[in-house]
């Protein structure tokens, strides 16, 4: 059956599977980039507070900065979800089409 399955895999299927793999890898890259960006923002935020610039600043600016930093991370996580979801969706689509192709081949062979 797996033999049939592999035989049924066309160039389009392989391209879609490559795209799925790429989306999966890209998801992790995006997450890493946003995570690094969050850490960068946090360090900047901490430095500003350690320096004299923001010591007398009001709490509003501090909260705004903290939320902005947190926002980077949240966006990164959401993009990760979307890309991983797309990657999985493409795999299911290819699997579904292959299942039908294998059936079609089996019917043809019986005839």
């Amino acid at each position, binding site marked *: 059956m797996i033999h049939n399955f592999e035989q049924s895999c066309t160039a389009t299927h392989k391209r879609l599977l490559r795209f799925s793999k790429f989306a999966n890898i890209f998801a992790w890259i995006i997450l890493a980039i946003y995570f690094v960006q969050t850490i960068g923002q946090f360090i900047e935020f901490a430095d500003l507070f350690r320096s004299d610039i923001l010591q007398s600043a009001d709490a509003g600016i501090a909260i705004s900065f903290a939320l902005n930093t947190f926002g980077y991370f949240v966006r990164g996580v959401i993009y990760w979800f979307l890309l991983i979801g797309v990657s*999985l969706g493409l795999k299911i689509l290819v699997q579904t089409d292959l*299942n039908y192709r294998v059936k079609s081949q089996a019917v043809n062979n019986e005839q």
Partner: protein
Amino acid sequence: MNNNLRKTIYENFLLKETDELVEIWVTNDRVEWSDTAFEVIQEVLEQRLDELPAQNEPIFEHEKQSIHNADDQDLPWSKFTDPENAPLLYKPMDILRMSSWLNQASRIAVVLFIIINNPELSKFQRLVMSYFSDNPQVDRLGLSIAIIYGGLAVILEGLIYYFSLKALAHILNILMEMEFNSRDVR
């Protein structure tokens, strides 16, 4: 009123097949069917059958089963995770887990975006207010516009993420269902 209702139910049940009535009688779902309905079914079945079949325990409350919640994997989802009939390209458990996460993330995203964008809202408010700085009489109008428009923009961004994540969760579930339906032909 009761007689009329009973008569209507009786006439409706008379039109039903005996098998269908037996199924309702045996299932004994008291949530779906009223006591009067069961009295009428009993009457109809007594006319059609020699002996009434035994009833199950009465059902007074339906168990809540959310097919959208991937945590409820006992009944609807177990068929997907059968290792005997597993797909080659993906793991069904990954989909179920991702679907569950997407559903949770969609709800959390709305709240987080409203919180995160609050500073942006105050910036927007200052921007709108600057247009009305020359005319103190319309200050209140400017403030209202800032709150309404800025608030809408923030909520809309949250909703865009909400719908994207929610839609993706449903699409994954539907795709997996489609794939499952094509599996037995493999």
